[in-house]
């Protein structure tokens, strides 16, 4: 079974700064994968690379991205547009900014639907939106008919984000990439929006790649989790496994150091130091300077993925650490 999304050894540079240093990712059809990383980990670059939406300054130094077998980075423009139209959907962090401010919501939805030949001719009242528009808005639990007639700036953040999801899902993509879609939303609304995304995706059989900095939230909802550090995926596997029994020292430290898991009276120990800024391929393991388990070879030899149980871990000492942890 070949995966829907295959990223192999992707290396991306922005001028002298390296954003991805050999990233690997696999997403199967119908699967929800959470990609967790802090700023500088490269997760947004990875998300953008899936649809070849990298800024002009980005240079792909090595590696491949395949969506449904097609090599995304090498496609000619027309084929790329077709791929994006038919197979990919994107949801970004700021919903108001990702919607066209000059068009009403219903009109934008109709635009997408028309591109897929799904517009039902002679739908309901022309101004408010055809039957299909209402259907798609209902799928994201926006039942109020006034939404379709509204402009994006008239909606609340949560509603606008649901519209963005409806737009992305209207074409029934095979893969939905969501880049921190709930970062600008309240916790209550966040739960609703996430419920909508995951329910809709499950129903439609759409795979999800969900980029986030919040490990516990991701692990709760996704099938698998990939943790990124310094442009590589350092640990990936079943969600509960990665969160509950992390092997890679970075994942373990991340899971331990969220304020949310603090116990009263006990001081949290953050991961000391800061993530590195790479200016080229990392000579060894990028986490070595901050790692309590680092050995000599960690600084000079790049680790390869090691299979530990159901997880893939990028660490020279993975096998030992599994026992220690």
């Amino acid at each position, binding site marked *: 079974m070949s995966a829907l999304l295959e990223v192999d050894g992707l290396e991306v540079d922005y001028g002298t700064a390296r954003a991805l240093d050999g990233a690997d990712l696999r997403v199967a059809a119908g699967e929800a994968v959470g990609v967790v990383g802090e700023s500088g980990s490269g997760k947004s*670059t990875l998300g953008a690379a899936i649809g070849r939406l990298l800024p002009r300054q980005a240079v792909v130094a090595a590696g491949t991205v395949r969506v449904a077998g097609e090599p995304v980075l090498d496609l000619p423009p027309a084929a790329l547009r077709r791929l994006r139209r038919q197979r990919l959907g994107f949801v970004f962090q700021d919903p108001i900014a990702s919607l066209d401010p000059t068009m009403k919501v219903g009109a934008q939805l109709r635009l997408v639907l028309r591109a897929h030949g799904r517009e039902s001719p002679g739908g309901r009242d022309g101004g408010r939106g055809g039957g299909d528009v209402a259907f798609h808005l209902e799928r994201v639990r926006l039942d109020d008919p006034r939404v379709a007639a509204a402009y994006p700036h008239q909606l609340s953040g949560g509603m606008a984000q649901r519209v963005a999801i409806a737009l992305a899902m209207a074409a029934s993509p095979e893969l939905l990439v969501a880049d921190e879609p709930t970062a600008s939303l309240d916790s209550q609304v966040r739960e609703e929006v996430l419920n909508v995304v995951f329910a809709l995706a499950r129903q439609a059989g759409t795979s999800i790649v969900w980029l986030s900095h919040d490990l516990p939230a991701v692990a709760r909802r996704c099938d698998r989790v990939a943790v990124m550090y310094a442009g590589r995926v350092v640990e990936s596997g079943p969600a509960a496994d990665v969160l509950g029994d992390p092997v890679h020292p970075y994942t373990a430290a991340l899971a331990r150091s969220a304020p949310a898991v603090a116990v009263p009276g006990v001081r949290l120990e953050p991961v000391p130091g800061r993530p590195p800024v790479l200016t080229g391929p990392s000579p060894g393991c990028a986490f070595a300077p901050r790692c309590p388990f680092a050995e000599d070879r960690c600084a000079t030899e790049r680790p390869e993925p090691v299979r530990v149980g159901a997880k893939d871990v990028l660490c020279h000492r993975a096998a030992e650490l599994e026992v220690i942890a």
Partner: protein
Amino acid sequence: MKETAGEKETAGVKGVKGRRPRQRLDPLSLTGLGCLLLLVLVALGSLVHAGGDPDAIVGPRLRPPGPGWWLGTDNLGRSMLPRVMEGVGTTLLLSSAAVLVTAALSAGFGILAGYRGGYLNELIMRVVELLYSFPAIVLAILVAAVAGPGQLAAVASIVLVTIPLMTRLVRAAAVAVAERDYVTAAAISGAGLPRILGRHVLPNVAGTIAVQGTYALSVGISVEGGLSFLGFGVQPPQASLGVLIRQGGTYMMAAPWLIIGPGVVLVLAILSINVLGDGLRDRFEPRETRSLI
């Protein structure tokens, strides 16, 4: 847990979002700058009569370009070369002086209006809009009617024409700066209005002022050209590009070089300034762009 000054971390590798690019101006803008400097040199040269005496009669009238008069002679037999040089000098001098006045005034009004808001903002913006609603040339003629034609009219018109847009843009920039946390922090620490405006707002809208000032310069050159062309600006025998174009216009059919010389120089000046302005804008107000291919 100390962090040594040796480890310099950048704010993430997501591209050039919100970072000030430290690169030079692009080649086109540099060309514009080069052209402008060339024109300034020419203007300075005219002060020492480097190309000749603009008022001296050197030969027969209406001669095409040739030895002794490299840009031809006009209807009085004066060599066009020194006259065009003087024209460049006069035009640049008047426009620059005007733009400096505009920059100072719009900086002052724009920052006050943007930071304070409220009634002061309303007052300033309404006056500005009133000025803006006049077509430039009408405003210029009005000024000439009041002040009498001449250099003062030219300078005053340029100021009045360029103040509205510049004030608006400075105000917009000031509004954006005013809500930034470092300004609030300064207010919380007890900084008074002069300090806040002088140390925090002004330095951070200076980029906008520089960029818009550059564009205003090219507007100024056009306004001076137009006003002098109509006879309300610089008065002959003093030459400015507008005056020269007017004088040349009369003989356009017989002696096209009389109008081509100043005309080309005028276009060159405006183009190079605009291109320079674009380059400055890209450098000071970068926009993140994604290529979708």
